[in-house]
């Protein structure tokens, strides 16, 4: 593995999958629309019924899905490298729960209702939870089990507090529960635009940190010997993880397992080189999220299963497989 040609072909296949997922996301749903009509609706948007559905509803949620998928996958790459822990994922580490707690605080305490407002609170929440998990578990040497347990406990703890805040208020609760399970439904083009700067900034940081992460994998001393500034690499990767998680959670709620599954898949396909892992993850993450969203739309008509629920149902067995296979998990 690892030849350039092979890696390029992986990229091409991933691109094709992503294109397929985008097309499915635009065409499928409670009302399937033929691909030809989808394309013509995108081209001229004459205001017909199909054009309304495609442009008004499916394009925005597809755009949000692209952002969220890329963000969560890269956040997973950064977290797994940073903690040298194969089980790191924004949800598993409790960073998503921190972002969610931030957003709920914005709604319940400060009465904020705009997504831009959510994002800032989400970022602060993600950063606080991230620093906490990092302080508790450290860089390396702490077993993946305890990291996962700590994350699960933080997730449960913050979850209970959030619901406690909301238990008092039935109306907010009703809005919140749809957001809290991780969903792309009902997103507007504005929302996609509002989180874009945060996702782009996180993406940039992840790309910049990629080579440094390769060096970190060899150990701090070696990385320093190779001329990398270890502290800066970590800071960049942590910044990327927080920005990407905070933005993704603010717009779509905590969606689990994308950040866990995609980096593993990417490493399996192109090897451990982080530049390639980042490139493949940024394509496969959105493909996975869009596929989960499409599945959620069609399996229980006329209702919808939220995207985050689909990824959790697919991801949990994957976690079991990883746990049983990985040698690294034994301690």
């Amino acid at each position, binding site marked *: 593995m690892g030849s350039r040609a092979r890696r390029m072909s992986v990229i091409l296949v991933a691109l094709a999958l992503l294109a397929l997922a985008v097309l499915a996301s635009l065409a499928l749903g409670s009302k399937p629309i033929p691909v030809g009509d989808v394309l013509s609706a995108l081209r001229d948007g004459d205001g017909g019924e199909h054009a309304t559905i495609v442009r008004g509803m499916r394009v925005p949620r597809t755009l949000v899905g692209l952002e969220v998928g890329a963000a969560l996958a890269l956040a997973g790459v950064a977290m797994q490298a940073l903690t040298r822990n194969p*089980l790191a994922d924004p949800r*598993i580490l409790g960073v998503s729960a921190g972002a969610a707690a931030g957003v709920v605080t914005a709604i319940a305490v400060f009465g904020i209702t705009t997504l831009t407002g959510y994002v800032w609170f989400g970022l602060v929440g993600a950063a606080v939870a991230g620093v*906490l998990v990092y*302080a*508790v*578990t*450290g860089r390396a040497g*702490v*077993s*993946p*089990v*305890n990291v*996962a*347990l*700590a994350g*699960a*406990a*933080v997730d*449960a*703890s*913050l*979850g*209970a*507090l959030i*619901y*406690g805040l*909301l*238990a*008092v208020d*039935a109306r907010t*609760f*009703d809005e919140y*529960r*749809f957001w*809290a*399970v991780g969903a792309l439904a009902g997103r507007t083009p504005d929302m996609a635009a509002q989180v874009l700067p945060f996702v782009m900034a996180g993406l940039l940081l992840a790309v910049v940190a990629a080579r440094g992460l390769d060096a970190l994998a060899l150990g701090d001393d070696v990385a320093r010997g190779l001329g990398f500034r270890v502290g800066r690499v970590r800071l960049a990767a942590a910044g990327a993880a927080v920005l990407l998680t905070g933005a993704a959670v603010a717009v779509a709620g905590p969606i*689990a*397992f994308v950040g866990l599954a995609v980096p593993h898949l990417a490493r399996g396909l192109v090897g451990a080189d982080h530049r390639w892992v980042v490139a493949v993850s940024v394509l496969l993450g959105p493909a996975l999220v869009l596929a989960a969203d499409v599945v959620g739309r069609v399996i*229980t008509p006329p*209702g919808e*299963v*939220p995207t*985050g*629920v689909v990824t*959790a*149902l697919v*991801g*949990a*067995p994957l*976690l*079991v497989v990883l*746990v*049983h296979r990985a040698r690294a*998990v*034994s*301690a």
Partner: protein
Amino acid sequence: MTAPGGSACREAGRDLRAGLPGRPALRIGEASALVHRRGVAVTVALAAVLAAAVVASLSLGEVTVGPVQVLRAVFLGGTPEDLLVNELRLPRTALAAAAGAAFGLGGALIQSVSRNPLASPDVIGVTQGAGLAATYALTTGVAAAAVAPAALAGGLAAAALVFAIGARHGLAAHRFVLSGVAVAFALRALIEIIIVSADPIDGQRAQIWLIGSLNGRGWTEAAAVAGTLLLTGPALLWAARALHTTALDDDTARGLGARPVARRLGLGVTGVLLAAAATAQVGAVDFVALVAPQVARRLAGTDRPPLLGAALVGAVLVVLADLVGRRLLAPTQLPAGVLTAAIGGPYLVFLLVRGRRRGSV
């Protein structure tokens, strides 16, 4: 976690010292138990704290009743506060104490078996399984009486699933605990499907159940939990002794003539049963099962969570959480689970930081 070897040496050393002459021991015929002086003092102190918490829970509310009147109402009856104290506050407080004791005991057993201070019913699937069954029952208009049995069955079934997935590597292995995390994720996703597709009112009812609350519950629920505590009593007496060998690593335990896997299975099942029974009656009052055994262990200064101590700390925690939840934002009643989560989260972080510094987590 400590390295298995180091832990075993330390444990074995301590057991050896505990067996030396000059230590007080309690002997009744064949049976004998070493008396841990600090342990006894701590147990007595905890019982006193529990008694005070119970009296406070009976005293405070919309109408405050003085402690002396409370005691007279409970023990003599026929006082003006009879109805308020005995009919309204006593059953709820009894349930809180019983459920807390069951959570504490269940947590102590599960933590000892998995040798992981972070393992608790919500990590090994009990909470989520019970939650899934209860959510289904609450949102489909099943008779209210069916919610608790359904939750009990759900909790046990989920724990069995986790055992089945995780047991291949031996119950103590970390993979067992991680299998629980994975199953918990999947079950929570199913719970979320039900809540999102339910009517908002039903959804919120289910949500409050999931957090854990003692609102509107009483003698029936208390009797169910107390019954489970009594039924598991014999197993617990045996467990107190068996824990000595389960805390050793498997090879050492086998060398001492114990059957480690069978013992762990027995203790684990007892722990799961207690946690599931309590969850079925009061919902998932988070973190009590996690925190109580560790608090008791620290107070008693032992290596393993003491069972009676864990039960007492658990009872104190739930009684106080329910009391504070009732009074903090009165007349709004906060579910007890919110309070325990508020205390449990920071405590968990403390536990992890301390453990990391000492190299044991």
